[in-house]
């Protein structure tokens, strides 16, 4: 069974630009989650999508947004990039109808903002 996949592996952008990160969940999983792992800040919850809808978001500004497509894949967009957005962005998926709802993570996209 294929795991969660993310693309690209690495992304280099300059301040003020926009970044788009992509995630494909495990087949059959309907929920996709995004996390930011920044140096010194640990892992922080960003967004949760389920069945195409945004269900919850963490304490991040609106320039962090995303969407979930009908095939359950997801996109994270970060607008007006700032230097502190440099981080590893992890995507996870789960099947909500099957407790205890463990999430399976992809390898991440490392975003560097210069």
């Amino acid at each position, binding site marked *: 069974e294929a795991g*969660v996949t993310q693309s690209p592996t690495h992304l280099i952008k300059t301040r003020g630009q926009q970044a788009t990160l992509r995630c494909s969940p495990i087949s059959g999983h309907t*929920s996709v*989650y995004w*996390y930011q792992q920044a140096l010194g800040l*640990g*892992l*922080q*919850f960003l967004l*949760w999508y*389920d069945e195409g809808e945004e*269900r*919850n978001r*963490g304490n991040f500004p609106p320039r962090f947004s995303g969407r979930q497509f009908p095939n359950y894949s997801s996109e994270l967009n970060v607008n007006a990039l700032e230097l502190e957005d440099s981080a590893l962005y*992890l995507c*996870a998926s*789960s099947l*909500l109808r099957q*407790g*205890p*709802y*463990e*999430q*399976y*993570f*992809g*390898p*991440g996209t490392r975003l560097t903002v210069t």
Partner: protein
Amino acid sequence: AQSVTQLDSHVSVSEGTPVLLRCNYSSSYSPSLFWYVQHPNKGLQLLLKYTSAATLVKGINGFEAEFKKSETSFHLTKPSAHMSDAAEYFCVVSEPAGNKLTFGGGTRVLVKP
């Protein structure tokens, strides 16, 4: 609100000796608890999960964790460390609907030959 505290940011052990990673949690709900491992430049891998069915939980690679409600703890142990166990470990608590994970700060494990 929920929170997780990993009591050690770094743990150093010799190969073949026991490993203990300490975790305390706070949750308004009956929690779901997990341990994840992250090897360098890799994503997170689920080690084990607490489902309220049994307080002693066995995971992959010889790891196990014990849920102690009275102490609000979920410590991770392994009887004998292997070089491949060198990684960062995260204790995680989940909201009841599973839609948001709260991570501890992580414990980096160094295994000495």
